[in-house]
């Protein structure tokens, strides 16, 4: 679990970013949907995005939901992130002759990440994302079938808490 402070920070950041995204959502270009820090360093942001999408891969979830929680790392821990991404590229070139993002096979990319999963860089990204991605209420119902807060609707009495029919046996 991230420290309480870390969680609070990422949550506050996330809210800030959501506001920023809403304001910018009229723009047509996809990259303007990126959070501010991601726009400031698009090259680093693109590499970090690839990494994030490989840690918790969900094809149907748009890039901005990964970038919103990850982009603040580019500001707060830029050195760790930049060095970690460079290291990952070195490992990819040694194993496959190309940068990490250019390794086509998702299985091969995951294998590269398994080598660094115990390191601070990887765990910083993962711990940020496991909260930042899965604690985003916009994604809950459409992607995971999780409905979030229910008390405002009177809970689930009469709304499907005890309606299961086990008809698959």
């Amino acid at each position: 679990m991230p420290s309480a402070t870390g969680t609070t920070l990422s949550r506050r950041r996330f809210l800030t970013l959501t506001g920023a995204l809403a304001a910018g959502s009229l723009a047509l270009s996809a990259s303007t949907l990126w959070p501010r820090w991601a726009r400031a360093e698009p090259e680093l942001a693109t590499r970090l995005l690839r990494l994030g999408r490989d840690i918790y891969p969900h094809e149907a979830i748009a890039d901005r939901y990964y970038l919103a929680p990850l982009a603040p790392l580019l500001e707060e821990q830029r050195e760790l992130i930049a060095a970690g991404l460079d290291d990952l590229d070195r490992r990819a070139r040694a194993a496959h002759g190309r940068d990490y993002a250019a390794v086509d096979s998702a299985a091969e990319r995951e294998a590269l990440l398994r080598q660094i999963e115990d390191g601070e860089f990887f765990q910083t990204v993962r711990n940020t994302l496991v909260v930042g991605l899965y604690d985003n209420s916009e994604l809950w119902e459409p992607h995971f079938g999780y409905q979030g807060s229910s008390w405002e609707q009177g809970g689930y009495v009469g709304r499907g808490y005890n309606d299961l029919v086990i008809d698959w046996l």
Partner: protein
Amino acid sequence: MSTRFEHDDDGVVVIIGSGAGGGTLAHALARKGIKSVVLEAGKRYALEDIENDEWAMFEKISWLDERITAGPRQLTETFPNLPAWIVKGVGGSTIHWAGVALRFQPHEFRLHSEVGDIDGANLLDWPISYEELEPYYVQAERHMGVTGEASGMPLHDWNNNFMVLAEGARRVGYEKLRAGPMAINTRPYDDRPQCMQAGFCMQGCRFGAKWSTMYTDIPRAEATGYCEVRPNAMALTIEHDERGRVNAVVYADAEGNLQRQRARAVCVAGNSIESPRLLLNSHSALFPDGLANSSGQVGRNYMTHATACVFAEMPKPVNMHRGTTFAGIISDEARLDRSRGFVGGYTLEVMSLGLPFFAKFMDPANGGWGRDYAAILEKYDHLSGVWICGEDLPMEQNGITLHDSRKDQYGLPVPIVYKGDHPNDGALRRHGQQQARSCYEAVGAVRVFDVPDFPTSHNVGTNRMSARAEDGVVNQWGQAHDIDNLFVSDGSQFTSSGAENPTLTIVALALRQAVHIAERMSRGEL
């Protein structure tokens, strides 16, 4: 405006903690006209502060002061500063508990006599029998509103999550399947509404349908005029006179200023980490090893239940997040039966987590990510889960000690919470995991997988009850063997863990202790 007592009023009982033990005790004493001051380290919350949001509530109410997780267990790596998932706030962990209100079984009070000595385990019988506690169990069930006979409330309807587990359980031959007993109203009871099946029991019940001292015992105790609750009051040391009787508690108030509340008696109910920590921190020239510690058992025999979780993906959506969090109980394995290869039993309790917590807790170790991990999360609404609540044998080396240099925000040594498994715990856990797996396979699971321990909410045993002073910290009334006006009123007085959730037993013991304190006061002994 509730009653206020003077700091130098030496006629009050000082109760440290406002949860299942302290909150219940304060209310029970108040109804007998006995004055108390409750020192609660956390804030006071209102029902409106309770959100259906896992991370928000975790941040809001958890006890997050520095602690060090230690011992040969996964939590040491995955949650190095969060050995326990308990609450800092008025109401304590009764805000967070899920409402499962099981009695201990008669044989669990005399486990040592039943099974004899076991290598590596510090087994001991309770100095109290089931028969002695039974009337207080009945009282506690009425008091808390536990579904079933005592309250007259029917059990809950089975929710989808329990239907899945129970169907599998039936197919493997289990028979003791019940959606209770729960201290969660199935109809209006005790001026509280019925359960709305909202989920989020462990984040606090927004409706107040689940019993919690936060909105029952604490405000009712205050309403009598005999109890003052001081939130944001962190007890630092208990003081004593030259004869060794306790007479005051020093605490830090909301502004961090030190205050001293004089006391007629002191009841410690800060949960099984803080309670022994406070006794150890209260060492003096007369008691160099800490208060009530002539046995050397303060802080030892820390038990958490032998636990694990098993989750399964079903062929169709289950929506485990709908309805109560711990919605049903299987008790067939709770018996004592050494032929299974371990002593003690376990209950299987169906459970759910929301997506935010499930994503974190499914595998909190470094390897908890990747395509398979994400694929399970994509099937979140198809999942069902079960938690194993098993007898955890007491071991002397499992316990709470004080760090020799790290200090917290109050200048107190940070507690080190050391816990390892007894081989019996491992055998029980494996058996439970296999049985849970069999249940889910019998009901057609697509896949079944183990989920490791969470930071524990069941912390017991660190100031245990014993018949003889040399074996434990308190006697059958929770009264310290060494100091006759010092009591322990929480789960730390448990002599063994049982296979049942601890809250009902904590409440029954607190009600019984209140009677004892009142009797001794009326005889002029306190």
